[in-house]
């Protein structure tokens, strides 16, 4: 039986694909206008926020105590440390996971003679960090050219060269600030998306802590109505920092929960609304459509300032596929790289940033409540290479 079916499907597919394909060229043109429509709107919303946020992300100037009157904080509610400069504090943890990677590269590059074998090993080390074959090959080529131009190689030069190269790959000149500042009376809206088990709910909780630490008020929206006890998990996070959680019963429409969360945020005049969504594999069209709906419904009240894709550092080449599909459906503005405290290197984000131009904005460095840090390329590379 199965072969009959297979044959039928096969044949039908060929015919249908063949038949449909020719209709494409005529249709390419009218489509594009749909996208740009959304972009300017989002950017217009972001613009005022960017100026406020930039300072925090680039330099730890705003480390001064947040301007929240301490009387307002209830005794049982924790007071998390501010977000700025966290990466420096968590540096030891980064060095633990990434140190071997940096040392291996440095060791290889400092060899007396760099033959083909050594270059291949360098490429292998990069591949081992999940950078992908194409990217690794290109980095190796770049380094090779530079070594040839440089001629001599003192340890300092090699280190500097590698540092430059890695920073170049990570992309130092992109805006990595998370846009969480309110626009007048309207709160900033952050939507957190990703596949199952990457740590979306945890990221929402930690992000709320970062923001409260910076003196903001936060509303959490538990739009993960699918997974068992996801809303409870978010509520636990929320109650620790005194952030209210908008939730519904399991199986409720996530879009309506998100809508209510944003509404509550507006009514209460909070600074930021963080909406947690259910994990969904990017191959499930139905679920991706649902996500699109969540976004559309939120936008009925307020533009979304930030859509964060949570990627697990252990993810391999499939991460690219995930990022591509999520970017298509909801226009992702930033990546949160989680579980970077393990042995995984998370090299896939290099490809993601390259192809989609979506930068890493936050990194998760552990299970502790305050182990989420704004991403700073220089500090990150320094931690990789060690002092």
């Amino acid at each position, binding site marked *: *039986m199965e072969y009959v079916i297979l044959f039928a499907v*096969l044949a039908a597919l060929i015919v*249908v694909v063949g038949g449909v394909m*020719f*209709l494409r060229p*005529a249709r390419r043109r009218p489509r594009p206008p749909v996208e740009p429509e959304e972009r300017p709107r989002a950017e217009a919303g972001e613009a005022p926020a960017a100026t406020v946020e930039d300072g925090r992300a680039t330099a730890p100037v705003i480390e001064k105590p947040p301007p929240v009157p301490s009387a307002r904080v209830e005794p049982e509610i924790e007071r998390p440390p501010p977000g700025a400069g966290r990466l420096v504090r968590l540096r030891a943890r980064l060095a633990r996971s990434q140190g071997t990677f940096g040392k291996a590269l440095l060791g290889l590059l400092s060899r007396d003679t760099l033959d083909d074998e050594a270059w291949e090993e360098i490429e292998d080390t990069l591949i081992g960090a*999940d950078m992908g074959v194409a990217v690794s090959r290109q980095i190796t080529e770049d380094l090779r050219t530079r070594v040839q131009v440089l001629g001599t190689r003192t340890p300092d030069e090699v280190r500097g060269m590698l540092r430059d190269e890695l920073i170049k790959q990570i992309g130092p000149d992109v805006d990595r600030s998370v846009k969480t500042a309110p626009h007048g009376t309207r709160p900033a809206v952050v939507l957190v998306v990703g596949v199952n088990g990457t740590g979306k709910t945890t990221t929402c909780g930690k992000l709320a802590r970062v923001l409260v630490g910076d003196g903001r008020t936060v509303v959490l929206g538990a739009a993960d109505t699918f997974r068992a006890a996801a809303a409870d*998990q978010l509520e636990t*996070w929320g109650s620790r920092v005194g952030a209210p959680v908008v939730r519904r019963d399991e199986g409720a429409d996530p879009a309506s929960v998100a809508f209510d969360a944003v509404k509550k945020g507006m009514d209460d005049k909070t600074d930021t609304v963080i909406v947690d969504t259910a994990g969904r594999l990017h191959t499930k069209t139905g679920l991706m459509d649902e996500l699109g709906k969540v976004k559309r419904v939120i936008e009925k009240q307020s533009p979304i300032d930030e859509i964060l894709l949570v990627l697990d550092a252990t993810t391999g080449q499939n991460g690219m*596929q995930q990022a591509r599909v999520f970017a298509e459906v909801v226009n992702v503005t930033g990546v949160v790289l989680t579980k970077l405290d393990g042995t995984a290197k998370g090299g896939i984000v290099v490809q993601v940033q390259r192809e989609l131009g979506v930068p890493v904005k936050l990194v998760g460095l552990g299970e502790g409540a305050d182990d989420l840090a704004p991403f700073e390329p220089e500090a990150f590379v320094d931690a990789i290479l060690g002092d």
Partner: protein
Amino acid sequence: MFETLSDRLTTVFSSLRSKGRLSEADINATAREIRVALLEADVALPVVKDFIARIRERAAGAEVSQALNPAQQVVKIVNEELITVLGGETREIRFAKNPPTVIMLAGLQGAGKTTLAGKLARWLKAADHTPLLVAADLQRPNAVQQLQVVGERAGVPVFAPEPGSGVGDPVDVARRSIEHANRALHDVVVIDTAGRLGIDAEMMQQAVDIRDAVSPDEVLFVVDAMVGQDAVNTAQAFMDGVGFDGVVLTKLDGDARGGAALSVRHITGRPIMFASTGEKLEDFSVFHPDRMAGRILDMGDVLTLIEQAEQAFDAEQAQRMSTKFVSGEDFTLEDFLEQMMMIRKLGPIGNLLGMMPGMGQVRDQISQIDDKDLDRVAAIIRSMTPEERSNPKIINGSRRARIARGSGVGVGEVSSLVTRFFDAQKMVRQMAGGMGLPGTPGRRKAKQAAKAAKKKGKQRSGDPRKRAAGRAETPAGAPDGVPPGLPPGLGGGQLPPGFQMPDLGKLQGRKKK
């Protein structure tokens, strides 16, 4: 950019003359391609190196068969090796002589342990066991509640004496759960532990303590199919830390190629026992090494395609459809529409095509197709009268204009659909004649042929591994290399030697004109 291994290899070999056997140079060239293909599939680097060394050895001695070109032959070798490595020893859960049998789950955070615990419990329950779920993940906020909900859905009791979220001692919970299971006569205990990193010594010690407290019969390592190069480190760390007896792959319903499976198997030597393929509790099955091999090589997951198709199509429909194809003559727009709707039911067309073997060559075009195009075509056809559908030749200028108005497209699109349909009709006729169901004596006997194929399919649809083994035994020099009466090489995800996609290519060529 996502070429399949077979496409890559075809390019490598296209410059070479046909040879009696593979030369050293050919093998070196292929080794590099295989390496890239495996790395793209997230197989860990050290594993790739070992693997290639083995392939090299085998390929060097291999006779070139009549049926397969060198590229296909190498792919065949790689595929067979993958299956051997992945499926070397599949085994069932070992149940303890004196119940309860204790199964402990371990893995990284977010691998899917809690969900899997529920699936495993449901599976065990269906197999007439009385499982007990134990909430020993007291780390993550509300993991205990999650397990309780999952347990409720699976209809399995949950032992959760501690509230979790950082409160309670998991070792103690595990120990007490065994006593509880003895009292309440549960014969299987499934312990869900907290997610932990391989390098977290403290958490690893906790896992060891749990293990020592309950001395589990099976420790299962739960790993996400999407994991990349780090799979080796993690697997090794868990192996050294707690040690495990079997592996469970989760999130296989995504499109990750799942090289991790190979890495973990190769590094630890532990068999992959189960695969979890969805969010519902019933999406859980025993692991199929041959499908995984095809998936890693991106050879198309024909078997999965068939399974999906079987769910979406009823047998009668499929039979009618294939008969139509074989007879060729009376293939009408009505049939075309019906097929299109059937395919829509199967899911997004890009995914389906991704599952088909040999689609690498046309992947770029495929990625441009989206389901809305199908809807537009359907709209055009639905705007036709029944007569026009069965006999498109009668569509003249005024009919075209009417159809265009009805379906909201330009007249040009209608007329090109009709022209293309004639092309497609011709192609169907060619397919029926050329590729067809092999062994079909003539079109008039199509029905009998289809029946024969059906029978054949039934005979061969048993254990996929057996089928693969059967194929390996067929002498390589056999005239066709594949058993007669079947679309060539469709069993077990093998790349069909006779099956390429010339039809689609042709269509494209015509389109460009």
